[in-house]
């Protein structure tokens, strides 16, 4: 009962937090520098690891499909499966999980230590709304940068699969390209991008929330970070289910 209670309270607080963030969107133009700065932060934080993880993800996927389906489907379809899965599911999911690990821990640790050292209270007293100044720029930066990161991730997965296919799996490059075009629809890319934007939005919102509401002391920074990483990871998979149902399965 105690947990249900605190879950409900936290959910309510996060809802109010989100409304306040949306309200502070009117400061986007005034704070554009902060937004640009945070976009670069996010890119340096996550681009390399996303590309690296996706390349391997692609290689493993191609290998797994061949291993499981060798005598069941024509090898032409290997790249079809990879591409479809990447656009709809794997791409956004890699970005989401990558964000919940790397970006979310960075943001919540940073904001929590600012909180613990009174920097956030100082902003508040200087009549600088921490939501406008610290949270909104991070959220907007994530929303703007995520589609780009997702496309790069998706390309990297397919490229990884491509390397594996022509290098190890006896699939020709023509076959791979033909296969990946099959069943392709522009809508899939957009659906995937919508998902990843939602993942990024909630990941950053949660990490800002747990960072800014950290209690006092060094332990509080650690606690805020673990809380935000696990909350973000859970949010990503739950949202993934919801959005997949809405967007791709009627």
């Amino acid at each position: 009962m105690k947990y249900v209670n605190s879950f409900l309270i936290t959910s309510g607080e996060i809802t109010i937090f989100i409304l306040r963030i949306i309200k502070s969107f009117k400061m986007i133009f005034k704070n554009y520098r902060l937004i640009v700065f945070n976009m670069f932060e996010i890119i340096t934080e996550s681009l390399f690891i996303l590309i690296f993880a996706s390349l391997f993800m692609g290689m493993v996927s191609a290998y797994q499909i061949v291993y499981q389906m060798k005598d069941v489907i024509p090898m032409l379809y290997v790249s079809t499966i990879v591409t479809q899965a990447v656009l709809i599911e794997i791409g956004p999911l890699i970005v989401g999980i990558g964000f919940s690990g790397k970006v979310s821990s960075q943001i919540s640790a940073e904001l929590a230590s600012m909180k613990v050292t009174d920097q956030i209270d100082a902003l508040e007293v200087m009549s600088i709304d921490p939501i406008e100044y610290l949270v909104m720029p991070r959220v907007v930066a994530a929303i703007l940068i995520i589609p780009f990161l997702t496309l790069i991730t998706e390309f990297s997965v397919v490229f990884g699969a491509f390397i594996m296919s022509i290098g190890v799996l006896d699939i020709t490059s023509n076959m791979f390209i033909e296969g990946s075009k099959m069943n392709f629809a522009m809508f899939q890319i957009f659906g995937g991008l919508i998902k990843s934007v939602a993942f990024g939005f909630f990941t950053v919102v949660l990490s800002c929330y747990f960072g800014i509401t950290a209690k006092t002391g060094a332990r509080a920074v650690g606690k805020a970070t673990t809380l935000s990483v696990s909350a973000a990871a859970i949010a990503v998979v739950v949202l993934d289910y919801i959005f997949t149902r809405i967007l791709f399965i009627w």
Partner: protein
Amino acid sequence: MVKLTGVSKKFKDAGLYDINAFFPEKSVCTIIGRSGAGKSLLLRTILGLIRPDSGSVLIGGTDIYKVKYKQLKEVRSKFGVLFQNNALLDSMNVFENVSLPVVYRNPEMRYNDVRNLVKEKLKMAYLDDVTDKYINQLSGGMQKRVAIARALITDPEILFYDEPITGLDPLTADGIIDLIKNLYLTLKKTTIIITHDIRGFIDFTDYIMLIDSGETLFCGTKEDFMSFDHKIAKAYIKMAGRL
């Protein structure tokens, strides 16, 4: 003018209990009390950061917990605060830190004007040539001065100093005490000093408030405090060399 009436705030194992206090305009008030007495907590309620469970906090006639956020912001624009651990933004250099409050409020202010204003305030805090340094490149005493310069940048009506000399060597501490004293003598702003080392402040303070375990033990003029008969008060009076 700062007036607290029946301010209470309860935490699990600490808090403030029925605090009454009055700090007149343009006076110097020193809040003293042991470590953990609730001094910083009291400051937070005065700054509008922690809403008390009951009671009211009046700043120049505005009950800050009864008004809208926008009005609270207006009241806060009269504050200049030195936080206990400076609370400088460590991702920024000195110039960005000191200029932040004005730049954020008037983004169209010309760069040269900002630069001059920052220079002027740093000079008031006896600092120059540090504008490009990052906060962690400065000594503790210098950080205090930078934080004081930041507090001064908006020409505040009320200056708060939370433990301005704690953790500093005697020489640096004397420098900070001199600075606070001079700022008071030149600017004549309401000054509220929180400390557990009353020595340097006793000669220019007008009012003293003594709190312990979240309760007011004394709040009144320095002269009355000198004859206040209480164990903790006596210890402070002795410390100030007045017994």
